[in-house]
């Protein structure tokens, strides 16, 4: 399904059928290997565990140009129990990287909200790297009905 959709979209790209979506290049989308490599680089090769991090994203995004997402990591943010960074990836965008949040002892909580671009239906992945090197992951599929619109 992915390949045939990609071919249709590549043909449409020349005709600017989806003109204004900022993430649509008419070439390739994020390869699974890119996502895996970014995850490995971030985690230092550690296999991410489930738990501790919650990614909140809508099931259906009305507008692929601005999709609200939140992350929250269960951590006291005190002493040894600290979150170092949280990385957000999108496995179906032209490039998977979205943002990396850096937290400190002054953060109070390891939680943040932002808005992101999604080129099409895909998974949003959130990885939390703790001060002790352990890595946790959450993932949500977001359906994108209209991949961006307007100017």
């Amino acid at each position, binding site marked *: 399904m992915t390949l045939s959709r990609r071919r249709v979209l590549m043909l449409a790209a020349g005709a600017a059928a989806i003109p204004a979506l900022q993430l649509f290049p008419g070439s390739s989308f994020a390869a699974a290997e890119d996502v895996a490599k970014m995850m490995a680089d971030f985690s230092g090769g550690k296999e991410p565990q489930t738990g501790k991090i919650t990614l909140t994203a809508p099931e259906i995004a009305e507008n692929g140009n601005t999709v609200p997402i939140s992350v929250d990591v269960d951590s006291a943010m005190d002493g040894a129990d600290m979150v170092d960074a949280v990385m957000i990836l999108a496995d179906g965008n032209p*490039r998977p990287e979205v943002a990396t949040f850096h937290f400190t002892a002054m953060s109070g909580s390891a939680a943040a909200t932002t808005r992101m671009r999604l080129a099409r239906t895909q998974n949003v992945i959130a990885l939390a790297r703790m001060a002790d090197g352990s890595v946790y992951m959450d993932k949500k599929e977001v359906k994108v009905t209209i991949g961006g619109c307007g100017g």
Partner: protein
Amino acid sequence: MASAPKPRVKVPKTASAGEVIVIKTLISHEMESGQRKDKDGNPIPRKIINKFSCVFNGQPVFSCDLDPAVSANPYFEFSARVPESGTFTFTWVDDDGSVYTDEQSIKVE
């Protein structure tokens, strides 16, 4: 779109010592991803805010490395522990080297 990026921040005016508050920030910026083409088919070059940071009385609180997949007019909501009265300084850095800043004071009572 042609006007200078304008930051807007929302910070509570007061807090109790040690309280964790929520901060909201916004800056008007197109976040040109580098993926679009103009009407002649030429690629429009990437130009985004690539870094946002929040510092309180000289101590880093929160920062974000942004990639082109962050939406236009980048919005962040995050928290901060407030040990004492002081000033939050917010900084946004553009690909072209421009730096935008805003400040907000808070009083611990």
